[in-house]
């Protein structure tokens, strides 16, 4: 049997990889991909909890399902925003789209 | 088939035991499945198309026109090759994977034909690519093209046979 901690460690590594990607990357699509990694790390946690922990229900799987739904919606919307930005600015570099910051 | 570095391997073996026979077997497969590149340059192309069509049906020989040079075995140069076009023809030939063959169809592609004295016309496609079979005619009839394909099949079989025997 694989200990629960190993699943959690895997998800921790995956989450920090996603965090690194979000912080270090400039391209908007790459940032989106890193966010997907983070969501997946969370999903691994949820499913592992639902399999290993004491509970009569399996809320973890249901939640993971909803996370996937939200991820799909998020990707669709974000990609359309990226395309709109690319049309008006000819760039998908998030550091160049900072007009609203000051 | 030209394989660099394979000579040493061939030399160490007695003739005719295995390599020659497999070569001939491969040639059998190759000659039964000659896929020409789909392109035509001038009026000969019309005859070539007629040969592909239902009445003559080149599919009987396993000849299936293919649009991309990467998947083609035979190049049928059907028509006048102008200087401007010659670069494209040469490029297409270079893009085809080995082993590959060329059929020069019609007088224009053999030696310039009626345009033999024109400076803007290549005086025979064999000046730019190596030609295996020449089909004379202006344009040749479909039967002539079919004959050329059968000749090419014979040539492939004979080449394989000869490569196995004499060196």
């Amino acid at each position, binding site marked *: 049997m694989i200990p629960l901690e190993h699943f959690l460690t895997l998800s921790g590594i995956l989450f920090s990889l996603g965090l690194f990607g979000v912080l270090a990357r400039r391209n908007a699509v790459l940032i989106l991909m890193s966010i997907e990694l983070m969501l997946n790390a969370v999903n691994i946690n949820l499913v592992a909890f639902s399999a290993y922990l004491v509970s009569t229900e399996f809320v973890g799987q249901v939640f993971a399902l909803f996370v996937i739904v939200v991820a799909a919606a998020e990707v669709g919307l974000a990609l359309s925003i990226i395309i709109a930005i690319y049309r008006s600015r000819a760039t998908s570099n998030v550091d160049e789209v900072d007009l609203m910051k000051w | *088939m030209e394989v660099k570095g394979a000579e040493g391997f061939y030399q160490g073996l007695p003739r005719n035991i295995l390599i020659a026979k497999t070569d001939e077997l*491969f040639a*059998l*497969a*190759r000659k*039964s*499945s000659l896929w020409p590149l*789909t392109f035509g340059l001038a009026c000969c192309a019309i005859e070539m198309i007629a040969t592909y069509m*239902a009445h003559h*049906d080149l*599919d*009987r*020989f*396993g000849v*299936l026109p*293919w*649009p*991309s040079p*990467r*998947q083609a*075995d035979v190049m049928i140069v059907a028509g006048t090759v102008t200087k401007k076009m010659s670069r494209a023809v040469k490029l297409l030939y270079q*893009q085809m*994977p*080995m*082993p590959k063959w060329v059929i020069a169809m019609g007088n224009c592609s053999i030696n310039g034909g009626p345009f033999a004295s024109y400076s803007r016309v290549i005086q025979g496609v064999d000046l730019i690519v190596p030609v295996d079979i020449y089909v004379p005619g202006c344009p040749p009839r479909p039967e002539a093209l079919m004959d050329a394909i059968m000749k090419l099949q014979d040539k492939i079989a004979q080449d394989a046979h000869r490569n196995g025997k004499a060196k």
Partner: protein
Amino acid sequence: MPWYVDITARVGAMLIFLILTVLALVWLERKFAGRIQMRLGPMRTGYQGLLQSLADAVKLLLKEDLRPANADRWAFQMAPFVVFVPIFLIFVTIPFSRELVIRNLDMGLFYIIAVSGLSIVGIVMAGWGSDNKYALLGAVRSAAQMISYELPLVLALLGIAMQASSLNLVTIVEQQRFLPNLFMQPLGFTLFMVAALAELHRSPFDIPVAESEVVGGPFIEYSGIRWGIFYLSEYVNLVAVAALASLVFLGGWEWPLLPPAAWFLVKTFALIMVIMWVRATLPRLRIDQLMDFAWKILLPLAFVNIFIVGLYRLYQWPTWTVSLISLAMAIVAAATVYHFPGGERR
């Protein structure tokens, strides 16, 4: 027998069966299209050209394996396998008869839908990795088409799953012992077959690989055995879709007289012949017509199909009413498409 020997034997047997079937299908398609076009098809290679596909296969194996200088090494060389493996994985759960199956999964239908979507990635890899504008164009067309047509395909299968209350293919087949789903849901069958043609890149939806527009699409730069794998996977996909349709719509092996697996193969090959017939008959659609057709006609019809099946399940209607409504809808849809063909070119 240890489990790994068992699995290897099953998968190997399936692989050999598929390769032989594909060789036979290539020959069959050339003969069949030839007969339809009043030609003979392959004649010279073996009796009636029976060895033609073998010759083609051997020739492709021996051809030079080219890789364009600017192609992306990794994506270009991996793409054929990324296309082939998911399509082959479909066959893990396709039952030829009740026992003759690699592994009967409880969620077989959903598994097939999920896995078959993966091969799009391989096609996009091929198109992008080739560094060729036609290949890229073909790959983008292919991805758009496959994503659009996956929806009606999945929704048509959803109708079946609702009716059978199961995703297990064996259960679905056994429920059709008396009445194949074809007669129950003619609309669903029509939707499935049309969407499947698009998924298979088959005429009249062969826009991604159209020779006259994109010169063979994503596969343009491939030669030799890698191209052969693409070709193989197109035909394996054809077999997979026809097998799936014969399982969920035609009742698979559940007919008397012949042995079960024979019935299954007969139905599968009949469907494949229909697909070849369509290919030899119809011209190609335009890309905007293709998208319009998926989103404005097939998708609403798929919802209607689900609605009808839902009403049937909820109110326990007699079977014939559902068949009649479904058939009427299919006919109305066909008439609509016939009278209002695709819009004008913008």
